[in-house]
């Protein structure tokens, strides 16, 4: 998967104290980077499921498009390059049923919602509305996937 994480460099190596830092030390990754990576990954997962579950395609596609929009907005406020589409995951050894695919998406959305809640509580004030909206959207995806 090529997503946001590939575009940034992680900061100082372990073991260096504050006084040891070089002036040109690479910047720390943006704390919202994991949220953006989740959005890219979830968009790909929902798009893949939409192709395989036609009766749920409208809902799954709408959710995929919401994750795309989240990734774009997070990219904008982090001032990082636009996200690359993620691969839809490794091939499974057995084909899951539609119910199993939906349940797997619900588990992923729930984890992503909880991450977004924690990010919203820690983020600076000017970012809180966007991150809060993303958390709320992920909660609505759980509802929509019932």
């Amino acid at each position, binding site marked *: 998967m090529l997503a946001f994480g590939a575009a940034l460099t992680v900061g100082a190596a372990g073991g260096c104290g504050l006084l040891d830092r070089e002036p040109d030390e690479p910047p720390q990754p943006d704390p919202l980077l994991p949220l953006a990576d989740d959005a890219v990954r979830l968009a790909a997962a929902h798009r893949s499921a939409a192709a395989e579950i036609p009766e749920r395609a*409208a*809902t799954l596609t*709408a*959710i995929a*498009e*919401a994750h795309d*929009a*989240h990734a774009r*907005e997070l990219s904008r406020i982090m001032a990082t390059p636009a996200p690359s589409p993620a691969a839809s995951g490794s091939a499974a050894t057995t084909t899951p049923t539609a119910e199993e695919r939906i349940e797997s998406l619900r588990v992923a959305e729930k984890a992503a919602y909880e991450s977004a*809640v924690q990010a*919203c*509580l820690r983020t600076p*004030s*000017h970012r*809180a*509305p*966007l991150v*809060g*909206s*993303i*958390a*709320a*959207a992920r*909660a*609505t*995806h759980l*509802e*929509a996937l019932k």
Partner: protein
Amino acid sequence: MTGELTAALSAEYAAIFAYGPIGVQLTGAEQAAARAAEAAHRALRDVLVLSLSGTGLPPAAAAYRLPEPVVDRAAALRVAISVEEKTAAVWRAALSATADAQRRQALDALTGCAVRATRWRRFAKTEPITVAFPGKAPA
């Protein structure tokens, strides 16, 4: 911070008012959802009243303007969606003015409104049933 929470209190009063006529037009699971939604908004109002005590609380109005007359089931569902979207917008605005426990309260309120709006869109068979940025005005 008080201004955003005061706005949230006014929005909660309006939501509680709206669910009266909404519930009258609904039956079965939809009416139960309206009752649950009204209870959720009453709980949010009570928390806000406690938070804002001593700051000059806005009083509840005798009546609030609804987006349209609630004359039948279809109108009730449209108004319910509208109420939740408007209340979500007020709570979203409160996020930037809050921190710690109050931000968590605002986030939970925004999330509750967004999830209820999704349920109402499902009842109304409105597609899509989700929006990308709950609480944000459409571009």
